[in-house]
């Protein structure tokens, strides 16, 4: 059943991908200028990249994203849970979140660089900052949306706070958490690009800007394609998690 529906979905994706390449090729023909190489040239450049080189750059980028997401999830879950379950903490923290939420986090990049230097810490911290507030707010709302009666049976048999968290609060809020990650992942990847321009010799952002400086346009485009692929794979991963943990809603 699922497989039958997945095949046309894949075919459709493939079709759109081919169409985009076609548009690209037409644009290339019309422009006829080295700043826009043909798809063929870019794919050729991609295949000539050393596998080790690609793996290293992609690996660095993925690692930074994972660390940032993980940190944001840990801290966000803790604060969001506190706010969702305790009216007192919600009253205390709500103004803080309300005031800091609208600050465009990317504007904090120079501040983070000043405080934490140009190394890995500031890169991971930026990604965490972008995600954190979204996670806090969605966890809080997700936890609040769980009806109080969902806890009744566990309460009556004397379940501990930890057992209620694992069996009710976390799974109940998981769908909101997943959709938040899906939404903020795009922003996180963009920010990663910015942070990889400075202070590193690895990562997709570095790779793309390096090719650009060397005027190696096919390689630059190849880098952009690879970077997009990384984003695509991350989206797929969230989809897989969603499929695995949200079965109960279908």
């Amino acid at each position, binding site marked *: 059943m699922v497989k039958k529906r997945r095949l046309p979905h894949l075919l459709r994706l493939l079709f759109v991908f081919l169409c985009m390449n076609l548009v690209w090729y037409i644009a290339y023909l019309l422009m006829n200028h080295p700043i826009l190489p043909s798809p063929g040239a870019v794919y050729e450049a991609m295949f000539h990249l050393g596998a080790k080189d690609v793996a290293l750059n992609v690996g660095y980028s993925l690692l930074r994203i994972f660390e940032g997401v993980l940190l944001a999830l840990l801290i966000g879950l803790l604060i969001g849970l506190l706010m969702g379950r305790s009216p007192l903490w919600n009253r205390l923290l709500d103004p803080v979140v309300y005031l800091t939420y609208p600050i465009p986090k990317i504007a904090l990049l120079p501040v983070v660089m000043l405080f934490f230097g140009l190394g890995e810490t500031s890169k991971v911290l930026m990604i965490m900052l972008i995600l954190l507030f979204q996670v806090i707010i969605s966890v809080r709302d997700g936890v609040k949306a769980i009806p109080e009666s969902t806890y009744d049976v566990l309460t009556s048999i004397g379940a501990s706070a930890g*057992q209620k968290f694992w069996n009710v609060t976390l799974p109940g809020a998981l769908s909101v958490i997943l959709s938040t990650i899906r939404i903020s992942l795009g922003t996180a990847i963009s920010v990663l690009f910015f942070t990889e321009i400075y202070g590193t010799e690895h990562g997709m952002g570095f790779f793309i800007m390096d090719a650009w400086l060397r005027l190696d346009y096919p390689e630059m485009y190849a880098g952009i394609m690879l970077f997009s692929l990384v984003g695509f794979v991350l989206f797929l991963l969230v989809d897989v998690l969603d499929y695995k943990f949200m079965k109960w809603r279908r």
Partner: protein
Amino acid sequence: MSSLRNSGLSIKALQVEYKSGQKALGQVDFTLPEHGIYTIIGPSGSGKSTLLRAVAGLLPDYEGELLFNGKSVHDQETLIGLVPQNYGLLPWKTVRDNIRVAMKITRPVGGSREAIEADITHWLQSMGIAELAGRYPLSLSGGQQQRVAIARAFAIRPAILLLDEPFSALDAITREALQQIFLDNWLTHPATALFVTHDVEEAILLGQKIVVMPSAKHDSPEILDNTAVFAMKHEKKRDSDEFFEQSKRIRKVMLAKW
């Protein structure tokens, strides 16, 4: 001392007010002997669910006393099995997982994995829903969910069993079959049980005594003795004269109190 220790569930001068200040449950006073079963019947809004929630420890404050064998019901050692009116299943867990979670929480040590799994299978089978073990609650009918909730309540082998209209979503035939199954299971594992229903027949079939709740909150409930019917064989109850007399008596109380 021994009379105190085996005195069962005593509800003394219980009154409940929700935050709005409005009374949800007028004065309730009765003692349910250990291993006894009483049915509770009453009009909608008379506080039947509120009474069960108070016993289950789900209400932060109430007036009066709730004792089980002389000690507070909310002692850690008194295990309470609850079948809430809304079934209380966790939607993100399969039928089997729902039961397993409750069992793991109530028997944290001892009890091998296989023993737990065998127990779950046994209870699902006795409720006639063995084939639903892998399904999620949202994909089940109301009656199926109720049966899962009952299986879960039995599976943890509670000292006190609280059932809030557990058969309300079943058709007449399934209902009768399940009443029989429930009674058989209860007779082999006689937990101290309170059974809420809005069905007069069911109240007579399943209770040693019948608590009829009043609609007015200043009134106190009327408690009818039902041992005569309860002692009969289950299949014979419906056609007996006592059953007929009892339902006439209940209807009279209902007319006066509702």
